[in-house]
């Protein structure tokens, strides 16, 4: 799984390379005059996503100790928080006031956050499977790869968001 995560990290790397060229090599001001980024909403979203990483870890720790209810609660919370994150991002996309085809800054903004959003969507799908299976009693203290693997993917999504948030919104 970690090898797959490595290739996913490299995919983000190619998008970050494009960002590097637009911002550092071209010396584009960030954000350019007249364009603003919703830092605070995105900051709250970051907090939500980071918390969701803790809840999915709690879910995994619970099932390792045989605590089914804890696992189910953790997975449900993670899914809901992830969904909140995604919906908030989509609302912000509509409200941000610029489009991908405006200039290189908007291009990179939408493409980098959009790539991340696509991965959140995939992560939510995998989490949905895990949650459904959790409520059907598929997991036990001995067999819980189906919780561990989505958890690893979700952690990757979370860490990637922190990097995206920091480079696009903050720096």
């Amino acid at each position, binding site marked *: 799984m970690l090898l797959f995560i490595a290739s996913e990290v490299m995919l983000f790397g190619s998008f970050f390379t494009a960002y590097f*060229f637009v911002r550092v090599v071209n010396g584009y001001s960030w954000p350019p005059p007249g364009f603003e980024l919703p830092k605070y909403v995105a900051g709250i979203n970051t907090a939500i996503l980071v918390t969701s990483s803790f809840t999915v870890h709690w879910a995994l720790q619970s099932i390792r100790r045989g605590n089914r209810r804890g696992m189910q609660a953790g997975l449900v919370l993670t899914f809901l928080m992830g969904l909140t994150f995604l919906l908030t991002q989509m609302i912000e996309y509509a409200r941000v006031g610029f489009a991908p085809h405006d200039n290189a800054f908007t291009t990179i903004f*939408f493409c980098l956050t959009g790539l991340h959003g696509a991965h959140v969507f995939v992560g939510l799908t995998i989490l949905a499977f895990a949650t459904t299976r959790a409520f059907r009693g598929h997991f036990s203290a001995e067999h819980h790869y189906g919780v561990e693997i989505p958890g690893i993917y979700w952690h990757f999504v979370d860490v990637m968001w922190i990097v995206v948030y920091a480079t696009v919104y903050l720096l």
Partner: protein
Amino acid sequence: MTEVTHATGHHEAEHAAPPQGWHRWTAGGWLRALWMAPLFAGIGLGIVLFFRWLGHWHPLFEWNTIVVVAFLTALPLGFLAGIGAFDYWVRYALGAPTQPEDHSGHGARSWKDYFRVNTDHKVIGIQYLSTVFVFFIVGGLLAMLVRGELARPGLQYTDAQGFNGLFTLHATLMIFLFIIPAFAGIANYVVPLMLGAPDMAFPRLNALSFWLLPIAGLILVGSFFAPGGPPAAGWTGYASLSTHQPMGTLFFNMAVQWAGASSIMTALNFLVTIITMRAPGMTFWRMPLLVWANFTTSLLVVIATPFIAGSQFFVMFDRILHTHFFDPHHGGNVIAYQHIFWFYSHPAVYIMILPGFGIISEVISVFARKPIFGYRLMALSLLAILVLGFSVWAHHMFVSGMASYLRVPMMITTLLIAVPTGVKVFNWLATLWEGRIHLQTPMLWALGFISTFVIGGLSGVYLGAVPIDIHMSDTYFIVAHIHYVLFGGAFFTIMAGIYFWFPKMTGRMYNETLGKWHFWLTFVAFNLTFFPMHLIGTQGMPRRVADYAPKFADWNFFISVCSFALGASVIIFFYNIIHSWRYGPLAGDNPWRSLTLEWQVTSPPPVFNFDEIPQVVGNPYEYGVPGARHALLNGARTHELEEVGH
């Protein structure tokens, strides 16, 4: 006519009865793909039209978007769903009970098994090899068309744009649909056997990875019918040419994605298999070098391939979403494309040669009857090439206008990478030294490889020096270099591998005389075709041109004639392979008297490879050492260990 016996494993279960009546249209297979593919395409079309209508974007029928979403993404997905590549995972997602694994669908009992989703790595390996040779023929015919156009100055039968399409597709097909997947196919067949494993770690993923490949190839071949013609920006597809070319470029963008996805999945499969499924006693330092080579190559694929995916996404976004990745008027950066593209495409050339190095190590050791000289350093040099390979990409960009401070460091790393490669060449020569050399066809290809690859490597060392590259960039010197390392390099190793493992895969021996004719005709024609290109390159003939100055006319004519001979030489190969596959003499288990594990089972191997798990007790190259054993199989026990003296 004697029959090849297929030894069966202990799981020989009954085949499930083939579906009858209308169930034939719902069971995974070509019939279901026949309706699922257009269905998905229709859904894709609907999605595009819906969103364009919702957003009030005009025109509603924007064909670039529709082609990408409906025909280049949704339709292939429908095809894959139809033939059953996703069946297991869909059943999992729907919560359906898992089908009991009686393994009755595993392995091949008739030719039809090769045309469906099959999880047996041996079947998948042969599927890969058959598919890539189809695209090899197409790519080769395109090369013949290129050489036909270049036989005389002036435009013969195509215009400049058409010519650009010819060499673009020639290179794209050869790189993504021939060399890379050919190595994947050989490795798919051989690596699990060499490891003593019953199959790959993820057989269903393996099957899916294969089926992505014909999709990529059909997209590329189909691009001839795109309005405006096939992609014509070179296989390198630089922005901003590619962002302003006709629709054919989108076919290139998407085909690369499908081929790249196939490649990454296969590589992940190899890595997990090699790390976790080695037979007991097989430490990393007792693995055959082919396994080492595929291990290193798979690491390269997993890490580097996403970058070409990214670069092609950016070109597509610039074309369809009108973004500005590469548009300097809105803050984009054109050189960014080259950096992102070459960050993959340089490791790609190592992906295209490292498995070949592994094949050569196997062949030379067996046919010189000597252990590989310096086994550990051979493995370590593979790892060195892996690491260094990521640091040299900008040597493709010395004249691009990139930041000039990058040039000297990239030159240094480029020259450095010749060191581990040179270590390998010298070790092969040392293996041959005072060996008992048997000059059968695989060995001829291996020896031919060493000579031509060294020439290609030497021209590469020249090109690594910035001042020389400034003069020779985009000339025929580069074309010579490319073909010496890719044809004289990778292709020769693929030939060595195919001839070497043909008896194992088919149970029959190819015709040795025809094999020798094939080699010599190819070797001579290849050198006559490509060596003069060094000369005209230094004299200034540019590459990727449909017409050229009259002073190059004589050499071009000579090169074209020799290239036709080169093209004709493949006919011998295909005749030999096809005829021997059906009528060749039975080969037996180990015609080459090799020590590696795949030769210790029948030809072809049993469905699950080994009747009992082999116990590895030594390294695989101890030729000529009395009593040496690589592995204990089939009941061989302690008295052999006593022979070895432990």
